[in-house]
């Protein structure tokens, strides 16, 4: 009876310890080398002349104008693209129409086109050398080398983020819950706000955060369209480049550090929200 040897159970889903530590080590090295080290360098360089040097850099009018510019762009471009992204994802997933596949490809266009090319397209379309651009400038509504052009470039470059996050989630969820709400007497708007939106809120949040990060960080398209006019159209990324080219290393890295901190703040916000709503996330997740 007692000759059954109770061996320690071997977990079948785990790799041998050696391979495990090798994989973990590899991942950590990669993260340290390519993500962490550059980030730390930025902060180290920014503080090379101490806090005073960094603060002096931030007091420069050009730096302040660039920060204001970038925050304004994000504040305008992100909500617009969130709304357009929801509309596009909604149209694609909830309705059947001709040209749907084409629309999906079109949404990805900004990812495929180099941002510099996107900027050039706007210059060609609205610049002083085009008929439309000439007319706009004559009527005191310049787009290129001005604020509207920067917004348009940012909108173009960041358009896919929200739609891309939402489409798979909305396809997976289908239309049944919305149809149920309608049969229960809810209007289209009520259905959207009480059923659709809660179901996509996490995907929407990720999309918005990614969109925001890119809106604040975009360089190529904005550099071409804005003309990088100091104190007027320069954004944080383009201002970083200009400082750097002028050997103002502390100013360049300080501004870069602020940009990095804005990005880290976004990530922190995301984690915080996930942590606060962990129970709800678990309850509504599908099996």
């Amino acid at each position: 009876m007692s000759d059954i040897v109770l061996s320690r159970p071997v977990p079948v889903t785990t790799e041998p310890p050696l391979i495990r530590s090798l994989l973990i080590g590899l991942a950590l090295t990669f993260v340290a080398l390519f993500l962490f080290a550059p980030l730390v360098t930025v902060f180290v360089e920014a503080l090379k002349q101490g806090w005073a040097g960094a603060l002096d850099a931030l007091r420069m009018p050009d730096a302040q104008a660039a920060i204001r510019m970038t925050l304004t762009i994000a504040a305008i471009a992100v909500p617009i693209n969130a709304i357009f992204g929801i509309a596009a994802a909604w149209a694609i997933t909830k309705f059947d129409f001709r040209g749907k596949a084409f629309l999906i490809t079109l949404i990805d266009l900004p990812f495929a086109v180099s941002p510099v090319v996107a900027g050039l397209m706007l210059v060609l379309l609205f610049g002083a050398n085009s008929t439309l651009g000439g007319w706009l400038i004559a009527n005191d509504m310049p787009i290129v080398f001005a604020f509207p052009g920067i917004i348009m470039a940012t909108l173009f470059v960041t358009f896919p983020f929200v739609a891309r996050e939402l489409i798979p989630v909305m396809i997976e969820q289908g239309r049944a819950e919305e149809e149920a709400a309608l049969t229960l007497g809810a209007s289209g708007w009520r259905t959207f706000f009480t059923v659709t939106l809660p179901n996509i809120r996490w995907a929407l949040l990720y999309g918005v955060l990614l969109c925001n990060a890119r809106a604040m960080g975009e360089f190529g398209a904005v550099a071409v369209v804005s003309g990088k006019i100091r104190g007027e159209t320069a954004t944080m990324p383009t201002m970083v480049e200009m400082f750097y080219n002028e050997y103002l290393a502390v100013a360049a890295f300080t501004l870069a550090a602020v940009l990095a901190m804005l990005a880290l703040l976004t990530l922190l916000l995301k984690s915080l929200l996930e942590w606060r709503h962990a129970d709800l996330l678990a309850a509504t997740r599908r099996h």
Partner: protein
Amino acid sequence: MNIEIEELAKEFGTTRALHPVSLSIPSGALVALLGPSGSGKTTLLRILGGLEFPTSGRVLFGGQDATGLSVQERRAGFVFQSYALFKHMTVFENIAYGLRARKRRERPAEAEVGRRVNKLLDLIQLPDIGTRYPNQLSGGQRQRVALARALAIEPRMLLLDEPFGALDAKVRKELRQGLREIHDRTGLTTVFVTHDQEEAMELADLVVVMSMGRIEQVGKPDEIRAKPATDFVRDFTAA
């Protein structure tokens, strides 16, 4: 409320989901739409509920033309095949949804909403599950919650798409009995879709046998068994 279906047809692009079909459903009847996959049962049910609009033909509710009525105006209690419960709401909130969605003038006070939801939870014999989320329920419980949610709007009729489709045999039998009781108690005209002939014959007052977008026969269960109108009906109900 009686339902009249007159020469109703539906095409999806080039697919004919429904050839012109006509059908009279007497008030208070429990009707089964029976047929194999793709025969147009769901399409007919969705047209009744206002979720799909017919290519031609008319629908009359209680003698009134309802063809152009929006899904909200139909006030049909609809139970979906996969129940379509709102995942992010508790059972209580699910059932209360229709009452809270009413126009301010017609909306009951919160206390009254609570009273009605609890009454419905008693009706489906699950009085203690109000605070749970749908993913914390068994399949049979979900089905009953979906039924309670549909009943909460005081519907003019009850429409159910394969209400027992995703459940095991024992639960199916219990819930069949449950639906029969609820139907008898509320007196609502009820139409349910099934491809299970035993279920249709056992539960329904009137069975509508469908095939390839056409109605093959309409009759009481024993009439259909005794006198199948076509070869298809005989083969399908013999199974």
